[in-house]
């Protein structure tokens, strides 16, 4: 056992309001400069939708991440490093600026300086790349709130898997938001893709970084990352990516995106994992088993054997204590309500998500079921608007069972807490129905709902 520490994040999508404050504060702090105008270390996607850059999840096209070959060995989907070296000057899997978007500004000065004319001055758009007039046709968030859905949703790779069930009509509409940062993977394909050895994972906390001095701008990391969370600065010619705000983390502050999240849905914490087992876990045969394999990598910080091994590997008591008080550990491993994003990419991502509840489908809500059902908030999981297959396509390589279990757990918590809320006798059979004790359900409720600053970070 080689115990290593990893900083990880959980985002509770059930609370995400899709406001993009995280994107803006992140951009202001880190990428509000030339060369990275189009770069959003943190972005928020409306799902269903194409994401940013568009269709990045379509690995048939972009070939990011890892695959397990017929011999059971893990290799980069885009081909081994040897092949990569051959393609180093022309990478066919590199997203173009159109796949992100052509950044633009406006002729704002015209508003102040326009001479007396016939019409009111306006500020038309100008490309930030060429300076030329342009029509804006795509952005980092073009399909926000299902905008352009009739044309755009066909390009959602996850929706394609469940599309036979989805009709694009108001009565069946559903949406939710997916905020994304770098996954700071345990098995980062970007690091493995870099021919210069410029990318690395910080030994003490697992943050994945680009060494700005060593980066030679080959951009193999860009194509190697299946989440497309490494970007190319066209001014400096170097790769840049989310740094997990290490200058803040190092002085005890949460990441910018976390602290400024007004949905209060982000949790930061430390995880311990067994570094010796990462490759085996990432090589798990069935994609649907990768979630469990990833869970198994995470070590119980309360286990004395783990603690001893951690100490041996240089992890201090403070860090061990942080791992024990980690809200991220509680949500991922104890309550098992957080799930990894696309475990099938085999990168062992370290940003996890609590999947969202949604309203019941129109057909159910139009019916006259018993009004008393207001207390039974977990009766209708199968009738929720977001198809469970869609969520499973994001978080569990298509296996609906874990998603169903999480949604049931959330619904059970609501039903259980309704009794508390109305000062009735709480019903212990409700937590029991999802395999939880009253105590742990109440603790989970506090973590998800009360979520004080000190609890979140």
């Amino acid at each position, binding site marked *: 056992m080689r115990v290593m520490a990893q900083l990880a994040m959980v985002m509770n999508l059930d609370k995400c309001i899709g406001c*993009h404050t995280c994107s803006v504060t992140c951009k202001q*702090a880190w990428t509000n400069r030339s060369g990275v105008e189009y770069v959003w270390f943190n972005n928020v996607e409306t799902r269903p939708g194409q994401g940013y850059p568009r269709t990045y999840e379509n690995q048939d096209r972009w070939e990011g991440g890892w695959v397990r070959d017929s011999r059971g060995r893990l290799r980069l989907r885009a081909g081994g490093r040897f092949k990569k070296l051959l393609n180093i000057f022309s990478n066919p899997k590199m997203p173009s600026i159109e796949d992100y978007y052509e950044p633009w500004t406006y002729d704002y000065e015209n508003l102040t300086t326009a001479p007396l004319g016939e019409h009111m001055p306006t500020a038309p758009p100008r490309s930030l790349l060429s300076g030329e007039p342009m029509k804006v046709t795509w952005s980092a968030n073009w399909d926000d709130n299902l905008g352009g859905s009739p044309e755009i949703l066909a390009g959602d790779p996850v929706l394609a898997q469940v599309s036979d069930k989805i009709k694009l009509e108001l009565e069946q509409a559903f949406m939710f938001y997916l905020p994304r940062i770098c996954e700071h993977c345990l098995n980062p394909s970007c690091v493995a893709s870099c021919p210069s050895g410029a990318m690395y994972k910080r030994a003490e906390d697992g943050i994945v970084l680009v060494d700005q001095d060593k980066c030679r701008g080959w951009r193999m990391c860009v194509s190697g990352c299946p989440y497309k969370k490494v970007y190319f600065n066209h001014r400096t010619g170097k790769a840049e990516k989310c740094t997990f705000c290490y200058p803040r983390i190092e002085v005890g502050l949460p990441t910018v995106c976390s602290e400024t999240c007004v949905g209060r849905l982000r949790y930061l914490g430390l995880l311990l994992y067994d570094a010796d087992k990462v490759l085996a876990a990432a090589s798990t045969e069935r994609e649907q088993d990768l979630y469990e394999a990833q869970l198994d990598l995470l070590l119980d910080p309360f286990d004395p054997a783990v603690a001893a091994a951690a100490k041996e590997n240089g992890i201090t008591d403070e860090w061990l204590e942080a791992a024990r008080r980690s809200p991220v550990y509680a949500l991922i491993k104890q309550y098992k309500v957080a799930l990894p994003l696309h475990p099938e990419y085999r990168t062992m991502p370290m940003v996890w998500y609590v999947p969202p509840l949604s309203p019941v489908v129109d057909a159910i809500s139009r019916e006259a079921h018993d009004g008393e059902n207001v207390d039974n908030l977990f009766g209708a999981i199968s009738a929720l608007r977001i198809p469970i297959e869609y969520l499973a396509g994001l978080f569990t390589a298509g296996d609906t069972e874990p998603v169903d279990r999480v949604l049931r757990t959330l619904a059970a918590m609501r039903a259980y807490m309704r009794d508390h809320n109305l000062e009735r006798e709480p019903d212990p059979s409700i937590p029991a129905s999802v395999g939880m004790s009253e105590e742990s359900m109440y603790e989970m409720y506090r973590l998800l709902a009360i979520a004080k600053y000190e609890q979140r970070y």
Partner: protein
Amino acid sequence: MSTGIDGPVADLLLRSGRFFTRGEVSPDLRTISKTGGREGDVFYRDRWSHDKVVRSTHGVNCTGSCSWKVYVKDGIITWETQETDYPSVGPDRPEYEPRGCPRGAAFSWYTYSPTRVRYPYARGVLVEMYREARTRLGDPVLAWAEIQDDPERRRRYQRARGKGGLIRVTWDEATEMVAAAHVHTIKRYGPDRVAGFSPIPAMSMVSHAAGSRFVELMGGAMTSFYDWYADLPVASPQVFGDQTDVPESGDWWDASYLMLWGSNVPVTRTPDAHWMAEVRYRGTKVVTVSPDYADNTKFADEWMPCAAGTDGALGMAMGHVILREFLVEKRTPFFVDYVQRYTDLPFLIALEERDGAYVPGKNLTAADLGDESEASAFKPVLVDGRTGEVLAPNGSLGFRYTDSGIGKWNLELGDVVPQLTVLAESGESVPVLLTRFDTPDGHAEVLTRGVPVRRIGDRLCCTVFDLMLAQYGVHRPGLPGTWPAGYEDAAEPYTPAWQEAITGVSAAQAIRVAREFAHNAEESGGRSMIIMGAGICQWFHGDATYRAILALLILTGSMGRNGGGWAHYVGQEKCRPITGWATMAMASDWVRPPRQMIGTGYWYAHTDQWRYDGYRADALASPLGRGRFAGMHTMDVLAASTAMGWMPFFPQFDRSSLELADEADAAGVPVPQYVAQQLASGALKLAVTDPDNPVNWPRVLTIWRANLLGSSSKGNEYFLKHLLGTSSNVRADPTPADLRPRDVTWVDETPEGKLDLVLSLDFRMTSTTLLSDVVLPAATWYEKADLSSTDMHPYVHAFSPAIDPPWETRSDFDTFHTIARVFGRLAATHLGVRRDVVMVPLQHDTPGETAYPHGTERDWRATGEVPVPGKTMGQIAVVTRDYPALAEQWESLGPLVETLGVTTKAITVYPDQEVAELAGRHGVMGHGAGAGRPALDTAVKMADTILALAGTSNGRLAVEGFKALERRTGRRLVHLAEGSEEKRISYADTVARPVPVITSPEWSGSETGGRRYAPFTVNVEELKPWHTLTGRMHFYVDHDWMEELGEQLPVFRPPLDVAGLFGEPRIGTVDKGLGLCVRYLTPHSKWSIHSEYQDNLFMLSLSRGGPTMWISGIDAAKIGVADNDWVEAVNRNGVMVLRAIVSHRMPEGVVFVHHAQERTIDMPLAEISGTRGGIHNSLTRLLVKPTHLAGGYAQMSFAFNYLGPTGNQRDEVTMVRRRSQEVQY
């Protein structure tokens, strides 16, 4: 199974490669880890470093009032992140941290952006004329006057408005020109031709007050904003006698059933939305009502897809279910007790005979029963269920201002049990006629239902409850009339089946949600809450919709509860230290009363939108009314309202109010009497009756903290054409001759270019600055000291300067201080000290609201009598204006504070100690008009003065206020603030951290003991009356004009029929050339706060980057529109060019053009007109609802931003078509 990486060649490469790498390559060659020595990462550490962090906030009208950390490096603002240090709300609740949204997070972009106004600018054409005349004449005022007297020159610069050609000028020149315009206007026409527009004081109280104080000291008029924005729910004064009072968002956490009705919380209340997400985890059920699949529906358990504008029908049907099941079939004790105590349901209404049946009449009062004691006409009566006796309980308006009412203005009932119905076995009953409006074009038809009656004297009476059951169609055995057969009866209003056909919401869902809502309220003690928003408020009949929904809350005992009741969040940014702000802003420390104008009335008249009304005021009337609007144009209604003292109008008279005072003196007649006589004789006219006469035009308008002409101007093109006199896209036809006003002068040539001067203060270029004659560069919110508060949280916190105002920018405070000084200098020559006749309407929360018993109209112009000021017309006051000393008054705290006291909602306190304290702290002015008075010469001093003069921020005044209220109510109330006597919130405190406010009689809820603020908890718990006729919440409003529109009771009124009223096509019409006719809605945007941020590069980058229209796939297909195609929307009011966002979350027949998208960003020339496409409000226009002009009576009386016509804009339609994809700028 063998695991490993790649193949042997790659392994070899990697194995050799790792010797050149400083990091540690994992044994499986997967990854590289590294410790220490990371020079390559210094870049990010450097980027993060900064010199200081300063607390500030955003003074934008969003109700957020979020506290922010502003980062500064090398004297440059770099970015901002949210503060997280709000005082805790308790261990078992989520906190307010962090508060903010992406828009706020993008604010610092403005500081150094290319759209920043860095220097004073003025219209080049005007500057040239002014310089020439100024040089020649040697006097700024004479120079200004000469230009204004020359029609050719005047029109030349007016026509140039908004067309570029702004040039840089100096501060000296700009302020001299501005001051000259003011002085000239006062001298020539009188001070009430000057107006100021600046909304929402709470979003930066000092900046607002600085300008308003300047306007009010000179006698100008401040125009209202809350009603003008259509954010005022007129139902609130009608039902509660309160402007609006709502729970802080932290109180959503207390709800156990939460409905969001027309309020898209994640978008419009972004920093508060987390409460909605979190409260679900307590087991609270969440239901949303909206026409589209809105953002908030993501968080709902159920969505009620209610067709746009039909929400009132759903509300009425849910009310039908609740009344029938919970108040008739089962008399739920919790509800029955509540409505007996706190509502007007048990009060008696006299029925009036009409065509062989009866119609609901007026509230029966003690006066009607022969009681001749004081104010008996304002003591409505009810029946004591124990004794059958008819009596007038405590707490009604008759107890509020009278000597005999001292100690009795309370809701104590003693042993009295108010009887909800006069229904008795074998009792008498009569058919009652009621109005229904559920016709396709909204016209009225008559319903016949029945009520039990009791004969009192010579009158037949029933209770409000009896009328409510008749109105809602809840049948009780033995009553005459036509009634619904059951819930499934779709023909009779207001059943669940009836609403299904209108709203599209299934009857089953309406019944179930109504039941759940009521059951929850019963079990939780009233913790059923409805968050209500602009989606239902901003319609022409938004007040009717609101009353239908409020009824659900009041009937279930949910109002005045933590976790229950209404949560109306539309533009309501609560100025918590209201008394302090009002004293500063209205300059009531020096002069009283202030001139306050209903914004909608002002713009309706002065932009000449009234001249395009295609219908008469009685088009909306009930056939059961008294015909009071027959033959009247809405402008006539406004004039009648003004004449009777119901609503204000400025300018007041067709003559200078300064000269009028001189005339009265010369005639030796007291001014009020003189004015009344002159009006009666016709020698003096109300300006409202001749608004297009040049002597009655507004002349000088100052706009600050606002973008009137790019954001809120409903009927924007009419503003451009008539008020400003520049190019416009108005396409409407004037009112045909047979529909023109009866009492208001119609001139043949509609004036163009009424305003002499448009002045704006801003830090960015907007439509308003582009259309202004003078633009002064303002400091941003990160460059000045000010105060912020909101209704959404219970704190007061600070703006503080992160940097000094850059370039030549100045804070609003410093700008008005500067202008005031220049004004004083010019006034010494041209104005001197004058006496000013000020006419103000009969005001709410004053004895003036008892002028018109029963709200019965009596227009002296029709009767020929001489009006009596304060009785049958507005009050007349004479105010001395010391114009040369204006700046000295402006910068010092005047003496009226302690001599007359400061008053909010009829509670007066005397802050003599505070004046002494302020004098000690701030020093006193050494000379001039303010000699010896506390200084107000810096923004921080004004902030501290605001805080010192309000109960919410000064515990002593809160206690004093409660003592005053104790005397009137006879109830113990001081305990609500006791223990806070020593508490003084200062500006410095608010800079350190957001500070919780103190419970004060200025508001209706209590924060005592750290509880969450919810409105009306003091009324419910302490038996303090509401500020209404009965002192209770009203279902029934018996004002004449309410009766005229058939709206005494909650009722469903559909969207206005603009096809019938204005000849627009019907929704769904497809015309080959013009496109498709759709409902045109302007909901609030995700990417801006009104027009602020819609030009911000971050927000534009995250959205579609310019003006857009959301349209359903179905509608887009009808006109061949693909996503991102350019489309053009055209109706009679104007034109707009947009790009389409096609989405299946939109319903058919409805488009969204998010408020507020301006011409300033990516707006091409319109194909149809060849001129610049418009703003979102180019397609809207003002539609004035006559009932909003009702006044003079109890809660239906004017107060500033409390009651007035709304600038509603949601009933509009437009044609939309795919236009040429080649656009020109």
